[in-house]
């Protein structure tokens, strides 16, 4: 009991010491959020409604004992309940991030329809000076440039449908970067995924030339040799970005090529429009028999289960507190269509409410029909 009390007092002291201004050596910054999300899932034609709930808390701690050194710990605590938990076999076992080597997660309670789960999302030591940056531990190695799909993000791919996980998963490894000047920098990273022949090691050269950010990547992704490049620039006033990643695995002919291109533009009436296309050479390009074949558990090998994919999203700020977004993803070969509207409203300075919708349509048995719908209502308090 005494031990818990001590920890509680210690945490209180840290929170009291946390400052809202820029951090100074010796300061600890604490921030995060608590989200409550209610989910309703429907099958075809809005039948068989299933409900579930999620309370999601993130605690981010950042300590700078001296100006060059930063130590970061981030915890993700989640409480799940409801029918979806009950109806999904092994729900708790699906909560672990698949590319983490060390098991730093704990399911405190794992009942048939109620789960309390904690994961250490980040735990790293960082040394940085004007030129050099070294980071060791669980961290996010994010090499993506574009918004919707990121072929260059080979360390921990992110599923764009998982909107509630904005921080994205981490990797257990190390990263070193060196900046020659404002134009050229290099970075090398290694991640141990804990899977046999599953480690990732790659280097990245970044350049800024002709008003374009450019990057070139080469390395080893699991059993593949990989090469990639990405760019971000503009054509007139519109943004123009892209990423290409090629994965080659010896003579057995298995290779993967993911390419994306994207343009974005902010119109004078405050409509922001983003148009993206993705090509996945090993994706499905013909109508499929049933929805379960369209597996959306994506990886750097396949960022979509389908070959050709397009996504248009538009955001309109109706007032500075209220905005609406609509996204439509369409894969022509399979006739897969995902409709993704959402509303965002800031109720108070640190209190936001969001409504997200995801509807899936697919051509099966020569018929284009709805297969699945999900509705999410989320309240978020940031601290």
């Amino acid at each position: 009991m005494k031990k818990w009390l001590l920890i509680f007092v210690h945490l209180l002291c840290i929170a009291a010491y946390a400052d809202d201004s820029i951090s100074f050596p010796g300061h600890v910054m604490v921030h995060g959020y608590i989200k409550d999300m209610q989910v309703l899932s429907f099958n075809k034609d809005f039948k068989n409604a299933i409900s579930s709930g999620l309370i999601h808390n993130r605690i981010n701690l950042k300590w700078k004992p001296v100006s060059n050194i930063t130590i970061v710990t981030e915890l993700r605590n989640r409480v799940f309940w409801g029918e979806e938990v009950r109806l999904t076999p092994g729900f708790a076992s699906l909560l672990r991030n698949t590319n983490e080597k060390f098991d730093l997660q704990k399911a405190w309670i794992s009942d048939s329809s109620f789960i309390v789960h904690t994961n250490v999302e980040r735990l790293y030591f960082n040394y940085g000076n004007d030129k050099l940056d070294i980071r060791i531990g669980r961290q996010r190695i994010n090499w993506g440039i574009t918004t919707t799909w990121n072929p260059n993000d080979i360390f921990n791919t992110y599923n764009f449908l998982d909107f509630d996980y904005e921080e994205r998963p981490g990797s257990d490894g190390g990263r070193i970067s060196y900046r020659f000047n404002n134009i050229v920098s290099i970075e090398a990273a290694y991640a141990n995924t804990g899977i046999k022949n599953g480690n990732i090691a790659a280097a990245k050269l970044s350049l800024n030339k002709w008003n374009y950010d450019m990057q070139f990547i080469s390395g080893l992704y699991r059993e593949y040799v990989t090469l990639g490049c990405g760019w971000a620039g503009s054509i007139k006033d519109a943004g123009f970005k892209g990423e290409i990643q090629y994965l080659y695995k010896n003579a057995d002919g298995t290779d993967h090529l993911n390419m994306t291109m994207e343009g974005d533009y902010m119109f004078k009436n405050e409509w922001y429009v983003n148009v993206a296309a993705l090509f996945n050479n090993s994706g499905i390009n013909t109508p499929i028999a049933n929805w379960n074949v369209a597996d959306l558990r994506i990886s750097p090998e396949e960022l979509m289960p389908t070959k050709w994919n397009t996504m248009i999203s538009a955001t309109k700020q109706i007032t500075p507190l209220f905005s609406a977004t609509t996204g439509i993803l369409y894969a022509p070969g399979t006739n897969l269509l995902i409709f993704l509207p959402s509303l965002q409203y800031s109720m108070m300075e640190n209190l936001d409410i969001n409504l997200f919708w995801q509807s899936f349509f697919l051509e099966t048995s020569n018929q284009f029909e709805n297969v699945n719908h999900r509705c999410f209502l989320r309240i978020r308090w940031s601290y």
Partner: protein
Amino acid sequence: MKVSSLLLTLLISLSCYAQDATEIVRKADEKMRGTTMQAELTIRTIRPAWTREMNCRIWIKGNSLSMILILSPVKDKGISFLKRKKEVWNWMPSLERTIKLPPSMMSQNWMGTDFTNDDLVRESSVVEDYIHTVTGDTIIQNRVCYIIKMIPKPEAAVVWSKVVVCIDKKDFIELHSRFYDENDELINTMNCYDIKLMDDRMIPTRFEMVPSDKKGQKTEMVYKMVSYNKPIKDDFFSVEYMKKLL
């Protein structure tokens, strides 16, 4: 002969007047910006039904380099913006990623305020990108001011098609500005108040941007701290540095 010499005199006097106008704008601009500027400021977005406040820190070097770091509200804390010449990047700490913004965002309202990106980080130069003409005098806050019309040069990529500024004759302080669109319609009016000694100079410390067609709506920007002409390395304005500001 008389007519031509009269015309010549008129032309010379007109060009001197134009040069004076540019010089006045240059002095006012130099007063507000210095060679480098670092400031901590509060931006208050005011609407009939609500008000929101944001605190940020800003670093500016010349017209081509600037950085903004958001300090509050907490949900946005650590978000930063970097502008280097025509390129703009946004660092999102929660996503741990840098997003390059399309140039079309420069002319749009920044973070829900009535200030555009360009108002804050000045992609355009009020001195280099405009042709300046003194059109008259006026009195604002008991100070005698020049009224100067600024029309963008044909090659300049600027947001406004006309800007009218009022600059105090004695201390070269910009006290009032009006921003017009391509249809010569007044879009925004900026008023500057609370002249105080900040660092080594007297400057206005409260700026109010009022959109002309939206009743009860404005954005206030208040300088809490400003320091001028302290050396900032060009290296500071880099994508790597924008991640390390907090």
